[in-house]
């Protein structure tokens, strides 16, 4: 599968939609651990990302990703909002000058996204964050790119991994954000940021399956 600027915009669209659909779900998760804003920030943030680039006459996916991130950072400067915008901006820098993503390019996109979040947030794996929700899917994508597996084949694996990763956050103690104040009591709770990762990756996999 090849992703051009057109599919990239469609993917952004799909993400904005899935965040809107899961607004109350995310508010619910965040109201247990944090301040109940995540449904609002994610639906608004991704909508702002879409809005910033939908009418841009631009085929450079790097630039599209960068500008969507910047727009999101203005729209929703919450923890996850800023981390996600940093993800898009980092991916944008890494892919600058690219107008098509193949399996390899897609893996690079998500890797740069992951690294952007990690660099701004200073979190390590296992500290119950967005990173833990994304890591399994990222490894499948990287491995797929190395071994030449098609995205279509990877898609169901991603859906399963994202699900498992989110589940696994209920075994971790939060070290960051509002949830961290709970210490040991945070362990059994689902991490809202990881839930966003699951939504993004699952929605990406479904996008692949529908468009292949």
């Amino acid at each position, binding site marked *: 599968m090849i992703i051009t600027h057109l599919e990239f915009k469609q993917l952004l669209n799909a993400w904005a939609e899935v965040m809107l659909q899961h607004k109350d779900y995310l*508010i619910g998760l965040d109201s247990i651990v*944090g301040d109940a804003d995540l449904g609002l*920030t994610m639906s608004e943030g991704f909508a702002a990302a879409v809005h910033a680039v939908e009418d841009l006459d631009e085929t450079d996916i790097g630039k599209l990703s960068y500008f969507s991130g910047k727009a999101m950072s203005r729209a929703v*400067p919450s923890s996850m909002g800023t981390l996600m915008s940093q993800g898009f901006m980092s991916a944008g820098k890494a892919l600058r000058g690219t107008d098509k993503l193949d399996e390899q390019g897609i893996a690079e996109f998500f890797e740069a996204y992951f690294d952007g979040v990690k660099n*701004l947030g200073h979190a390590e794996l296992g500290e119950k964050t967005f990173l833990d929700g994304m890591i399994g899917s990222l490894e499948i994508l990287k491995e797929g790119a190395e071994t030449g597996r098609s995205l279509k084949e990877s898609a169901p694996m991603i859906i399963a991994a994202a699900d498992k990763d989110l589940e696994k956050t209920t075994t971790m103690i939060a070290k960051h954000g*509002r949830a961290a104040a709970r210490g040991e009591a945070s362990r059994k709770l689902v991490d809202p940021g990881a839930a966003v990762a699951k939504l993004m990756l699952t929605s990406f996999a479904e996008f692949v399956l529908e468009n292949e």
Partner: protein
Amino acid sequence: MKKIINKPEAMVNEMLEGIYLAHKDMVEFVNDDYHCYVTKNKIENKVGLATGGGSGHLPLFLGYVGDGLLDGCSVGDVFQSPSAEQMFEVTKAIDSGAGVLYIYGNYNGDIFNFDMAAEMADFEEDIRVETVILADDVASPAPQPGEKSTRRGVAGMFFVYKCAGAAAKRMMDLDEVKRVAEKANANVRTLGVALTPCIVPKVGRPSFQIKEDEMEIGMGIHGEPGMRTGKLQPADEIVNEMMEQILNDLPFQSGDEVAVLINGLGATPLEELYVMYRCVAHILEEKKIDVFKAYVGEFASSMEMAGASISLLKLDDELREMIADPADTPFFTQM
């Protein structure tokens, strides 16, 4: 949701417009953006002090911008950090050659954005920026050496603003003002109790529940979980429990001198805050801890949340002077 507002989405901007209209002699906005709030009274070569954070906590944060206190504040949506760009705009506006100190609460979103803003200030404008992150809530874990602190900043931040504001007004340099702010931050402890939830206008319903006959000790100012939930107790028992936690945390000791802040979270009447202060004063007297000055009122609210917090700041000669200095903002005046 019983609020006197128009569209929930418009609330923050309309509130800010109201503030600029009411206090046009004292404050203004820059960069054509209501969210970039600065004092009109810029003092040449004074260290610029900036804070920032979500709306919904008035008089926190922008209320402490003014003479003898802070110079600027970037304002977010309700319970949301302002953006890095907005912080950067405020930074540029308040720098008058002596550098800028960021003083704000220990929240992820704010940290990420202030860090980005500091980079912009350094890279784009060559403004030296230092940072003090405030953490006074004893309901959240004490900082561990080598680990990122997860202790929250709550009402006690007022004391740090007051001390840093006085230090800057006395024309101390950036390192000195930072030292004073860090000392105040290290010496302040707060604990809150919540009785009812608050409602983020855009959400439209309470983001948590407290049972009709219960209270939550240690709840954060956005409704973050506290230390324990239990039956609502008489004021003296609540205060005794809170004071024990606060006094043990620093710890405060016999012979110490303190400033005290009894802060209302929003819906709790001033009458009840003074009932609490009476008990605080008795406990401190018994422990032979001297009260230099007591503040009672709303200093860091959570909209219509009912509840209150108690903050103690341990003083030394320097901090006592900083607390005593005059200040004048549209929300806080001390002669």
